[in-house]
């Protein structure tokens, strides 16, 4: 299960809406081993694409160095789907490389850039296997 504060969910959805129709992506870091998402870090989608996302390679190194210095890990890795449901695609599954992370997907297919319903779901992706998990929003 993913336990997450409401303002972090809102921040991911706002990022996804702002970047629609391209995919938005980012991380919520938290203290190592805590499983607590705390620090919201929106990333640039270097692919700038409606069907693909990738962190820029220099940004990626900076991000991991910074998390290391702060004894953090990527508790949540999020990205948006802009035309399909909030479920991991085949590419999402094949490139998933953080077995401890919650992979959060946000679908903006209904809301686009506007207010309106955005689907938010969370998954574990380990060794090519996807398991959906409940999201508990706790203030």
């Amino acid at each position, binding site marked *: 299960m993913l336990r997450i504060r409401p303002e972090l969910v809102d921040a991911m959805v706002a990022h996804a809406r702002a970047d629609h129709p391209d995919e938005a*992506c980012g*991380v919520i870091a938290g203290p190592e081993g805590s499983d607590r998402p705390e620090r919201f870090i929106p*990333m640039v989608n270097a*692919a700038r694409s409606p*069907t*693909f*996302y*990738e*962190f820029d*390679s*220099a940004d*990626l*190194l900076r991000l*991991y160095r910074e998390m290391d210095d702060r004894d953090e*890990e990527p508790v949540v*890795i999020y*990205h948006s789907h802009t035309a399909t449901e909030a479920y*991991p*695609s*085949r*590419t*999402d599954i094949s*490139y*998933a*490389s*953080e*077995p*401890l992370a919650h992979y959060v997907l946000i679908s903006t297919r209904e809301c686009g850039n506007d207010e309106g319903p955005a689907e938010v779901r969370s998954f574990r992706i380990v060794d090519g296997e996807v398991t959906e998990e409940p999201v508990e929003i706790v203030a």
Partner: protein
Amino acid sequence: MSVEVRIPTILRPYTGGEKNVSAEGATLAELITDLESRYAGLQERLVDEQGLRRFVNVYLNDEDVRFLGGLETELSDGDSVTILPAVAGG
């Protein structure tokens, strides 16, 4: 010549859980061969027939080796190599 190599979480099962390991090599290719000799299976996760795998980033100090010499990138004593899988998807 000794180079420190930073191993990402997903590859730590190969290094017995170690986050940082030392390895030897005058080039990145030699370094990976040296790593493979002690941590069997690691090489296949880093390279394929084309060279470095597309969704694995390897940095020499602060620079992505794709912008240096790829697998032929030369290493010096005291360098640090960081391996990070790309964060990507569709």
